């Protein structure tokens, strides 16, 4: 069956009242949990999964998928408005989005985030529909060596997104990698740095870290400002971005789409890495990189497009190989299996209704989200009018619930609070937290792919040279490090001369 026929069938399935209804519910829930700090798509999906047991397969999976990409839309809202990312993929959005809100351009930032998400989501869905079989064979070529190369590239390119001191950025990456070592080692199953604690066997929970670093520390910082009588004033002036905004953003949106899609397809990638890399890329390309971190709309448009494109991208290995590339798609895989369907190369043949139905539902869901989000932005902005004395305790409460809900383990709440204090101290000392988070995400994957490569290679590190993909990625990484060293060296010399 061709793509067009398939899509036609998919739309005929999804455009029934019942399926549209579940798609709408998913989009709403997704937006909501995206907006709420702490409660990410993972927690929401695992809570709602049992409900889908009783539902028809298409409706159930369309709803769960809608929560996933709905969260990518919603996550930007709190990142822009109160500098607390709703979920990890919106961490970078807060860098410039929040500054835009402070400059009174919250509306444009939110509008651009929603429109960018829509454009990226739609383009990458078209790519998903047409290239799915083709991309599968590309994804299969990514073994451990190739993954290692790509992840090194991802990690090193984040150094370029750091504002201010490069040394501090490198320190944060190193610290993140160290933190990611805690827990059971991915290769031998040996425990590291757990001090005999059962709670630490899986390391610190990523959700707890993100909520603590960004949510709790932000509240601590804001409390200081409230106490000193300073209050951030934000008003909203028009949602529709200006002509200038469009001129600045259309290329970042397209680049973000490409980056997001590629990182979504790759194993170990996903929305979080994609948004970071997109930001780093935009800053690298920009004619005035110094605008970044001060409210550059490209810094919102790129990453927000990237995280949405990554969602569509990550559906490819899931649907065509039965291989989840991140925790959320792993849950979706569970949902398929519960429905008695095994995602894999045969799904398109055996259950075309489900395969194309889910893809069609994503087109529909993106439209629903755009229609929902633009008018709702006004509502979300009202959040800012809630007095801080009410808003902060509420956010803190939601953060605690979010950190707890992932594993049902109260230890995670302490992790969240601990990282909240750490985040506060680091922010006070002008350290940036986002490279840290990316390092925590990539650390275990990086270690695993490196050790896998070396174990399976008969001649040690030569395995990286033999793989064209790995060799290219590592070559570019080396070039980036070289550029960085030269830049640092020059600026040092500049300092001593003046």
């Amino acid at each position, binding site marked *: 069956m061709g793509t067009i026929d398939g899509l036609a069938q998919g739309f005929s399935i999804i455009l029934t009242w019942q399926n549209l209804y579940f798609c709408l519910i998913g989009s709403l829930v997704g937006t909501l949990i995206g907006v709420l700090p702490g409660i990410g798509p993972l927690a929401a999906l695992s809570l709602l999964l049992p409900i889908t047991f009783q539902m028809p397969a298409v409706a159930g999976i369309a709803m769960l998928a809608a929560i996933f990409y709905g969260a990518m839309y919603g996550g930007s809202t709190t990142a822009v408005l109160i500098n607390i990312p709703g979920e990890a993929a919106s961490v970078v959005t807060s860098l410039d989005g929040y500054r835009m809100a402070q400059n009174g351009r919250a509306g444009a930032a939110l509008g651009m985030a929603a429109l960018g998400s829509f454009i990226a989501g739609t383009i990458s869905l078209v790519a998903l529909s047409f290239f799915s079989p083709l991309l599968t064979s590309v994804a299969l070529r990514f073994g*451990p060596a190739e993954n290692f190369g790509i992840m090194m590239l991802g990690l090193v390119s984040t150094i370029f997104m750091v504002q201010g001191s490069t040394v501090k950025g490198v320190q944060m990456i190193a610290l993140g990698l160290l933190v990611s070592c805690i827990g059971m080692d991915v290769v031998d199953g040996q425990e590291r740095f757990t001090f005999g604690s059962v709670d630490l066997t899986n390391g610190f929970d990523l959700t707890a870290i993100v909520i603590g670093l960004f949510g709790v520390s932000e509240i601590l910082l804001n409390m200081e400002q409230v106490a000193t009588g300073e209050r951030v004033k934000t008003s909203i002036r028009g949602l529709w971005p200006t002509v200038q905004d469009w001129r600045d953003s259309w290329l970042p949106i397209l680049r973000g789409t490409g980056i997001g899609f590629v990182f979504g397809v790759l194993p170990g990638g996903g929305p979080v890495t994609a948004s970071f890399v997109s930001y780093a890329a935009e800053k690298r390309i920009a004619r005035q990189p110094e605008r970044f971190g001060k409210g550059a709309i490209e810094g919102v448009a790129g990453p927000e497009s990237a995280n949405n494109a990554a969602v569509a991208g990550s559906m490819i290995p899931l649907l065509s190989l*039965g291989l989840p590339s991140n925790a959320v798609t792993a849950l979706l*895989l569970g949902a398929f299996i519960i429905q008695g369907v095994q995602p894999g190369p045969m799904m398109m043949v055996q259950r075309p209704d489900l395969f194309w139905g889910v893809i069609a539902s994503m087109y529909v869901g993106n439209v629903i989200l755009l229609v929902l989000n633009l008018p709702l932005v006004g509502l979300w902005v009202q959040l800012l009018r809630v007095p801080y004395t009410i808003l902060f305790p509420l956010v803190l409460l939601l953060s605690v619930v979010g950190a707890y809900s992932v594993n049902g383990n109260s230890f995670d709440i302490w992790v969240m609070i601990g990282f909240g204090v750490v985040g506060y101290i680091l922010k006070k000392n002008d350290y940036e937290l986002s490279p840290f988070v990316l390092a925590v995400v990539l650390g275990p994957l990086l270690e695993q792919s490196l050790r896998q490569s070396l174990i399976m290679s008969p001649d040690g590190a030569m395995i990286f040279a033999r793989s064209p993909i790995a060799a290219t990625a590592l070559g570019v990484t080396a070039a980036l490090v070289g550029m960085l060293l030269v830049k640092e060296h020059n600026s040092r010399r500049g300092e001593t001369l003046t």
Partner: protein
Amino acid sequence: MKRHLLAACAALVWTGAALAQDGKAKLAALKPADFPTQPIELTVVYPAGGGMDYTGRLLAKFMEKHFDAKVIVNNRTGGAGMIGHNYLATQAKPDGYTLGVVANTLWADSLLRANGRWTYKDFEPIAFLNYDPLTWAVATDGPLKDKPLKQIVEDAKAKPGATRVAVLAGNTSEMLVENVELLTGAKFTKVPFQGGAPGITAALGGHVEIGVAFTTEYRGHIEAGKMKAIGVAGDKRLPILPDAPTFNEALGTKEILWQAWRYVSVPKGIPADRRKFLEAWINAALDDPELQEEFRKTGALVDRSLVGENKIMPEVDRLIGLEKAFYEKTGRLK
């Protein structure tokens, strides 16, 4: 004619309902006066969405069908199952309200990771749910596509380390490979992956030669003709893989058994009447053909000959004995 058919249908429906009623009545007779007065909690030690979670949720649904009481699933996750096992062994009250939906990973945790804080002897198994043996699979366009298991093992003996196997580190899949090595003298290169499915994908992409996984993890690839199973680490061949021999059959061994063996376990010391009632209740659910069909859909196998303490206990002891002997031989357990 039509009327007769209707009458027959009605009679069938009625007998079915009557049978269900009968089952409920039998359970009601066993029900202790003061139990249950609150919801029963099934503790699952792995996250929502996985195989164990699904097993637990299905059991809860069918327990509710066979007796009018609330059964909830609680995922106590973390530490690769250790947090939940710890909870069940040391914190859960032996009052019959907390049941563990566990698997043989409990034994490995008890033997290797509990450090004397608790052992599997702190639990009493009350019902066997299902089992799912691990398998070895190769790509149908890979170098091992035409080789029988015996030959592959011979080759790995002649050229140690030349054959790469994707395993889940520290897990039963790694134990399976080591067990084969131990018994045959073969040597494989064990490449660690984060689960069976990523390992299968690596085998598809030619990054390793063999993947170790449960059949659910690559059923799609089998049906598409891209992967084929070459060995089953169970007592007998699998209905969906009639051509794949068991390891013991192919290699002439008898102790290669590595599977997910799922059962319901309770903390030791539950009042006898509650225990008896719970056992009858769970078995009523397990006898339901609908539940058995649901289990089968996930690739798990049902064996209803293992009912009652005097049947389950010896089997648990036998399997733990095999695992323990293996850990001692490989130096994991001293």
